[in-house]
């Protein structure tokens, strides 16, 4: 059976690529500290020596649209082109091509459907910065095959937070029951408090530092129960109008498990959002 080599949860900040590659006057003052933190975070994946990456993210109205919107979707393709014209335009992100791991995609779809998740699938999926940002930060060689898992955190009606946690738990079971002698890392990205297109956007800090503090506590201690007792679809509007992306962190808490303390925790207080990076090594606790 496959080994769950690492579980990683991260924010996906589309400005990282440009900030980290800028030089001279164009390089922002926070870039060096950010690069140092990302370099250390990257080492937590490298150390796990993964063969395959399951990548949990959310399409930002690129390929998935309101005429036919899936709640949860698994990519099943031999390759994934990545990043879109408007991400190149706004963030300077490069076009990429990633390999797929179709056997694991098929396994997640079959087992997920049988476990009660009516997963949509795509055989021609172009992935966006919710997945390419963690590739850029954690595996810039972009050499490992991936299985993209998209969640709807964007277009109401959304699944409830508990459903994200349940899907995370199921992904863990499914990865661990995959009959392949390979090491799998599950990497998911979302947000802490975040506002986009509203009055609290692009402030000196994230829109709700207190929410961010509590979120980091929930995630780093694996406090799924505490998190679920306070976070609802309605409550997530309060910290910022894009904070439903926090549900992808909750999904990753489901992968890591109840009470699973993160083996690596780091944060970076940037303008407009708190960056947060977490890694668990499931095997190390066994």
């Amino acid at each position: 059976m496959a080994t769950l080599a690492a579980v990683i949860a991260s924010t996906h900040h589309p400005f990282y690529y440009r900030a980290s590659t800028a030089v001279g006057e164009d390089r922002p003052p926070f870039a060096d500290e950010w690069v140092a933190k990302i370099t250390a975070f990257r080492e937590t994946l490298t150390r796990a020596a993964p063969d395959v990456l399951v990548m949990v993210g959310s399409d930002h109205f690129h390929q998935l649209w309101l005429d036919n919107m899936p709640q949860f979707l698994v990519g099943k393709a031999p390759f994934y082109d990545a990043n879109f014209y408007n991400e190149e335009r706004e963030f300077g992100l490069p076009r990429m091509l990633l390999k797929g791991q179709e056997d694991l995609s098929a396994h997640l779809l079959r087992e997920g459907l049988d476990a009660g998740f009516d997963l949509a699938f795509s055989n021609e999926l172009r992935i966006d910065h919710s997945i390419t940002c963690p590739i850029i930060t954690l595996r810039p060689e972009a050499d490992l095959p991936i299985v993209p898992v998209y969640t709807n955190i964007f277009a109401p009606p959304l699944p409830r937070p508990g459903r994200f946690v349940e899907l995370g738990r199921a992904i863990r079971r499914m990865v661990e029951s995959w009959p392949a002698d390979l090491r799998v890392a599950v990497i998911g990205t979302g947000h802490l408090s975040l506002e986009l297109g509203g009055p609290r956007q692009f402030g000196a800090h994230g829109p709700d530092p207190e929410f961010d503090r509590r979120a980091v506590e929930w995630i780093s201690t694996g406090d799924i129960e505490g998190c679920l007792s306070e976070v609802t679809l309605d409550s997530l509007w309060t910290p910022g109008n894009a904070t439903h992306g926090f549900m992808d962190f909750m999904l990753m808490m489901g992968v890591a498990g109840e009470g699973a303390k993160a083996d690596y925790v780091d944060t970076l207080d940037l303008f407009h959002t708190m960056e947060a990076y977490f890694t668990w090594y499931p095997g190390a606790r066994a």
Partner: protein
Amino acid sequence: MSRYLVDKFLFTVDRDPELVERYREDPAGTVAWWERDLAGSLLNCHSGEATTWLRFEDAEREALAAHDYVRLFELGAHPFLTLTLFIAMFERDHDEPLGFQKEYARRLAHFGLPYPDIAT
């Protein structure tokens, strides 16, 4: 209310570099043309088919034609779509980094929670 159609306008313009420029230069003309010729295009479907019943409300058409992102927020247009497209059109007019994004926030400052519903 045709919140979906407003989102569809923002979505289809944002993904097309030529339409972004056309909407920046001629908002009223672009909105009128788009509603007449493209509003009913069924994305990802048989090219010969079209939706027959989609129309803007007057307030929606006027807000789009005026580049009035404050009104679009009030009408429940998806804030990510509005922000992304308006950054593409107007960030270039500001010298300071994030200058447009900060002005955008200031102009929405009178909104408190709960924000207008964005469900479609």
